[in-house]
């Protein structure tokens, strides 16, 4: 006679690669808060502006001449889908900050089309954040933020600004587009920081 204790066999274990509350998707949903900007690569520019207003600008030719990294990362959208093992090519954000004189602790990412999102500067340094220009072996399509998007996979994906055009360095934190409408200022998916106060 077999004694089966209920719950022993069928118990579901949460996927250890998925942060709490997330589900796995294999497609790549497109989220948009407005019309998709179409920025030709040869007209794309990226400007880092310090807290004193000093600005440095890079072009597409500058970007693609810089040492790039191919990275494979998991991405987690606050609307609860996660996509594992996505591959990107980009230049580490730290490469754009090397020669910048700043005392800032925060940055605001700015996009073509007007989107903004705020991040601590520390989260853009080292091997945590990239100015990405290729996805899955191809140019990044406009729908996914091309020609160039920010990639900060350790935070919810709204922090990975599409259509990236600049970073403004700030001494004090200041909320961006979704952060002024209830979303969390930091957005750590592993701590499920979706909304303010989470």
């Amino acid at each position: 006679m077999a004694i089966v204790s209920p719950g022993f066999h069928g118990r579901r274990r949460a996927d250890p690669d998925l942060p709490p509350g997330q589900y796995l998707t294999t497609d790549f949903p497109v989220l948009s808060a407005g019309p998709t900007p179409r920025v030709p690569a040869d007209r794309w520019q990226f400007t880092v502006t310090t807290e004193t207003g000093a600005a440095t600008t890079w072009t597409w030719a500058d970007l693609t001449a810089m040492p790039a990294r191919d990275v494979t990362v998991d991405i987690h959208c606050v609307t609860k889908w996660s996509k594992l093992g996505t591959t990107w090519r980009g230049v580490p954000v730290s490469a754009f900050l090397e020669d910048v004189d700043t005392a800032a602790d925060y940055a605001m990412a700015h996009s073509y089309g007007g989107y903004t999102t705020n991040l601590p500067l520390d989260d853009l340094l080292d091997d945590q954040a990239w100015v990405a220009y290729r996805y899955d072996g191809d140019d990044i399509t406009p729908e996914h933020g091309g020609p160039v998007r920010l990639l900060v996979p350790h935070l919810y994906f709204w922090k990975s600004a599409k259509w990236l055009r600049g970073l403004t360095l700030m001494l004090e934190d200041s909320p961006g587009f979704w952060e002024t409408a209830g979303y969390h200022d930091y957005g750590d998916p592993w701590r499920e920081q979706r909304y303010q106060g989470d």
Partner: protein
Amino acid sequence: MTASVDGNALAGALREIFAVDVTAAVVRCCGCGQAGAVAQLTVWAHAPGLVARCPGCSDVVLRVVRGPDRAWLDLRGTVALEVALPAE
């Protein structure tokens, strides 16, 4: 395939916050001054919240974010919302 929908998509989210049907209200855009029914706004719903833009200048006039137990309504792109009421 990032299609938007019209302002009637705001009806459910706004009915939770307001006691009247706000989609019939007249909203004036901060960006260009154009006024029209909330139902005529261009709403981007495939996003972490509802983003309603002016059909004239595409500036954001209104946003609604629904958390599990809270909602946020951002009206900074709105000059005024004109709501018809029964005559006193």
